C-alpha cells in the first residue's frame, strides 16, 4: 500500500508491503502525522516553529524541546565528524538544521513502522529513503539514481537494490548543454588538483548508501559540500561494521563510485 503527501515542502511517500492494506491505514496516518509534527517544529519557513523562535532569540537552550536538543547534539557531532563541512549555521548566522532533520525524521518514521510490526516498507521524503525488508514479489527495493542533468526526475542513470539500507542523494541539477563551460568538458581537466576547480560546482550529484537514512543523509550533505573530495570521504567512512558506499556524478557526466558500491547494483 503506497501513499504520497506533500509535507515539509516535498513529496513524502510511504509504501508498506501488506496482504491487508486496510489494516495499514491508521499506521500510515501516524507516519504522516509525525512528518507534519517535524515540519511544525523545524521549518524555518514557519514563523510559529520552534526553530524560528530560537532564531528570533525568544527561546534559550535550556527551554529547547527534547527533539530540538537531540538535533542540536547530532548536528554538533556531524560537524565534528566532517571537519566542519556540515554546519547548521547558515550564511546569515541563523540555525537551519534541515540538512540533518530530514534524514533523522525519515529514520524515525521507519521506527514508527517497525514498532507497529511492519517489516517490509520504505519511507521516501524528497528522494531520500529508508528501506526495510522486501516488496510484495519478494525482491529488494529498487532505487534509481536520478539523472542530474534533466529537469524531470523520471530518468535514472543507475539502479541499485537495497533492503534495510538508507539512500540519500545530495546535489543540484544543472540543466542543459549550454550551461557548461566548454573548457570544463575536456577530460584533461579531470585530474586537475587544488583550487583550480570550482569546488562543489564540479560535481552535480552524490548518492550515499548507509546503514540507515540518518547516516546516509547527513554524510551525503557534508560530502557534497566537499566537492570532488566527497567520494573519498565516503570511501573511508565506516559506521560500526558497515562501510558506507557512494556514487558521485560530475559536470561531465562521469561517475566515480566507492569500492563496495557495485554490490548494490542490479
Amino acid at each position, binding site marked *: 500500500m503506497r501513499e504520497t503527501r506533500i509535507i515539509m515542502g516535498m513529496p513524502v511517500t510511504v509504501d508498506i508491503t501488506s496482504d491487508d492494506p486496510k489494516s495499514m491505514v491508521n499506521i500510515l496516518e501516524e507516519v504522516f502525522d509525525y512528518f507534519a509534527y517535524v515540519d511544525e517544529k523545524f521549518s524555518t519557513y514557519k514563523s510559529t516553529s520552534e526553530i524560528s523562535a530560537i532564531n528570533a532569540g525568544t527561546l534559550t537552550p535550556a527551554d529547547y524541546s527534547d527533539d530540538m536538543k537531540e538535533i542540536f547534539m547530532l548536528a554538533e557531532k556531524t560537524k565534528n565528524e566532517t*571537519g566542519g*563541512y556540515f554546519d547548521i549555521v547558515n550564511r546569515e548566522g541563523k540555525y537551519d538544521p534541515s540538512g540533518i532533520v530530514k534524514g533523522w525524521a525519515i529514520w524515525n518514521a521507519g521506527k514508527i513502522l517497525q514498532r507497529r510490526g511492519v517489516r517490509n516498507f520504505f519511507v521516501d521524503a524528497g528522494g531520500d529513503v529508508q528501506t526495510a525488508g522486501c516488496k510484495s514479489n519478494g525482491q529488494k527495493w529498487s532505487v534509481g539514481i536520478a539523472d542530474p542533468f534533466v529537469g*524531470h526526475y523520471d530518468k535514472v542513470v543507475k539502479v541499485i537494490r537495497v533492503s534495510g539500507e538508507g539512500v540519500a542523494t545530495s546535489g*543540484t541539477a544543472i540543466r542543459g548543454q549550454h550551461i557548461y563551460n566548454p573548457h570544463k568538458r575536456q577530460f584533461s581537466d579531470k585530474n586537475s588538483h587544488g583550487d583550480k576547480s570550482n569546488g562543489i560546482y564540479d560535481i552535480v550529484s552524490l548518492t550515499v548508501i548507509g546503514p540507515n537514512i540518518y547516516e546516509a543523509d547527513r554524510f551525503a550533505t557534508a560530502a557534497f559540500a566537499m566537492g570532488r573530495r566527497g567520494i573519498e570521504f565516503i570511501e573511508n567512512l565506516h559506521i560500526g561494521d558497515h562501510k558506507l558506499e557512494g556514487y558521485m556524478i560530475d559536470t561531465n557526466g562521469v561517475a566515480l563510485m566507492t569500492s563496495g558500491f557495485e554490490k548494490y547494483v542490479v
Partner: protein
Amino acid sequence: MIKKLFLPFVVIVGFVGFVVYGRMKTAPNTAIVPPLSVSTTPVPTVTSPATGISPTATSGQYKDGTYTGSVADAYYGNVQVQAVIQNGVIADVQFLQYPSDNGTSAGISQRSMPLLKSEAISAQSAAVDIISGATQTSQAFQQSLTAALSQAS
C-alpha cells in the same frame, strides 16, 4: 666504523624521509581516473524544460551581460545564481549562494585512496520503486535562473 657510516646514513634517511613527506603532501585531488572507453556521449543532452526556461535559446534571445538571480530557497538553504549572456545565449551560470557551502577552510583527513572505478553515466529504465535525486536544490536553481534570465530578456 659506526662513526664513519653515521653521516651517510643520516643523509640517506633524511633524503628518504623528505621524499616520502613530499609524496604525502601532494595527495591527489581525486583518484586517478583511468582512460575511459566511452560508449555513450558524456555530454548530457538537452531535454524539454520543466519550468519555462528554454535551454537552447536561439541567438539574440537575451541581452548580453551578467545577471544576478533572486535568492531562492532550496529548503536546505539558499540558492542564488548568476547568468552570463554572450552573443544572446547563456554562456555560463555561476552559483553565488549554495546550501551546505559553509566556506570553511576546515580540512578533511587526507588518507591514501584506492583507485575508484569510474564510468560515463547512461540513461536506464526508470521502472524502479524509488527515485533518489536532489530535488529541492534544483528547483531553487531553476527559480533563481529564471529570475536572472528575466532581466536579460
